[in-house]
């Protein structure tokens, strides 16, 4: 069967790609000069010392060793797994908030032209503010919010910062998607005498799916980055962000160790993108020729 073969081929090519990266790493480490390759004063290829480039298998092996020399320290794998799940959870919360806010903004903007003119510049401007700058603001404002018995925590701050990154592609993508139906379809809805809400459900939302899916995937990636960076900015322990910082300290004595949380971040990024892929499968019918190819 052709589709099956295509799928197998995709998996094989994917694995080959990873193998190629690993091979490049180790081959360069084996044959490259210890001081790296310099053009003038500028180092264009890195040093190949144990410190700068641990062997790929050492990085893998490091996962099975205890985090520290202390008695009772967990394996690095377990520690990274815990931190990854923690960060992924925060990223997911941020993604969810971002998607809701982004969709709401897109709906408002598509409903009223004047709202679009007023909001869109701010939406775009919002992404030029560095995360580091807004992190303390979010924490301070958040600490003044108290809804019912819920007290604002650092986790909330991290989720909000992740959402701050995630809402942007959703707002822009959904706005474009909601405006994508052509004149004939809009005329038809008017001729049927259905209101804004019905035509949203019947026409605008389904035809925005092809624009929305890439936006949701981008939002997922942004939420992961946002969560990890915000953990550092907020100083929240337990996630990959702090782990990257903590483990980096060990680099001189244990060069493979800082790589462990980096791989963790890569994996949760893939998990997040994969989840959107599943969502894409559910929404598959709506991807049918929604976008003129």
């Amino acid at each position: 069967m052709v589709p099956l073969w295509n799928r197998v081929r995709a998996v094989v090519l994917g694995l080959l790609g990873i193998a190629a990266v690993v091979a490049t790493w180790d081959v360069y480490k084996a044959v490259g000069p210890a001081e790296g390759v310099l053009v003038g004063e500028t180092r264009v290829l890195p040093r190949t010392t144990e410190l700068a480039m641990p062997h790929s298998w050492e990085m893998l092996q490091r996962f099975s060793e205890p985090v520290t020399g202390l008695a009772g320290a967990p394996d690095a794998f377990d520690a990274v797994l815990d931190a990854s799940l923690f960060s992924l959870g925060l990223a997911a919360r941020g993604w969810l908030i971002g998607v809701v806010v982004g969709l709401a903004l897109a709906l408002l903007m598509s409903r009223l032209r004047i709202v679009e003119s007023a909001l869109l510049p701010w939406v775009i401007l919002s992404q030029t503010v560095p995360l580091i700058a807004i992190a303390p603001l979010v924490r301070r404002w958040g600490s003044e919010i108290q809804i019912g018995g819920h007290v604002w925590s650092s986790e909330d701050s991290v989720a909000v910062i992740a959402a701050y990154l995630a809402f942007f592609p959703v707002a822009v993508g959904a706005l474009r998607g909601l405006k994508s139906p052509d004149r004939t379809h809009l005329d038809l809805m008017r001729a049927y005498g259905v209101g804004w809400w019905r035509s949203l459900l019947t026409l605008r939302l389904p035809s925005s799916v092809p624009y929305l899916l890439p936006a949701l995937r981008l939002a997922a990636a942004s939420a992961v980055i946002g969560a990890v960076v915000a953990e550092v900015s907020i100083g929240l322990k337990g996630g990959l962000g702090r782990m990257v910082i903590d483990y980096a300290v060990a680099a001189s004595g244990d060069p493979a160790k800082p790589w462990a949380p980096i791989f963790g971040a890569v994996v949760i990024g893939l998990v997040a993108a994969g989840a959107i892929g599943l969502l894409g499968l559910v929404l598959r019918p709506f991807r049918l020729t929604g976008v003129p190819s």
Partner: protein
Amino acid sequence: MSTPAGMEPAISVTGVDRVFGKGRKQVVALQDVDLTVADGEFVSLIGPSGCGKSTLLRLVADLDTATSGDLRVFGKGVRQARLDQDYGIAFQQAGLLPWRTVAGNVELPLRLHGASAAMRKARVAELLDLVGLSDFAKSHPDQLSGGMQQRVAIARALAESPRLLLMDEPFGALDEITRERMQNELVRICAETGAAVLFVTHSIPEAVFLSDRVVVMSPRPGRITGIVDVRADGLVGAHDRTERARDEEGFFRAVAEVRSLLHGTPMPTLAAEGLEK
């Protein structure tokens, strides 16, 4: 219904103007247009681009609002007629929803207006049979040819058994062979449903073949320059026509008459007048 069907004209347009823009950029799309389409009558609007024929159709459909003048559909205001689903509409683009099947597209207006599932199913089967697409109920639009998509659009326009069909160049994007076949189909469908039709087209033979009357329009400002009654040229009424009508003498006479009105040359009207007397 206070007035029995057939009493009120399907469409009556009186003194309608439509002006786009303001000041120096003002464009008069329609000026002082009067037109009546009787119940069950097939009327075509023909004219060069910019003559306002599509604008006129959009005004009747209440997709656009007249600057001044009065438009009625079966004696009602156009807004009420639109909300009451008194007309079915088809455009140059079939405008099918790509994620719905053929059956799903045809039943869309019924579903939006709350028809029961059983009723929808029966009606969709009937309509697909009418347009000859029963075997494609479960296909998606992208699996159909342009002509088939347009037939689905016509079935959708007929879904709620309207007494009036508004068609804006529905065959404009089709090749000549498909186009003639679709015209034959449309004549048959109109005969079966008895609906009045307002049909916008660029093609003289198409207008003449399909219509009882052809309304010729001219641009800048858009207005009606003449109306050719095809029946007066010796063709039978639109509902009784067969594809052989394309070879009849009356057909050529009507074509010549429409053409002379379009180009403003008086020459062939002699023949037409001779027949009327």
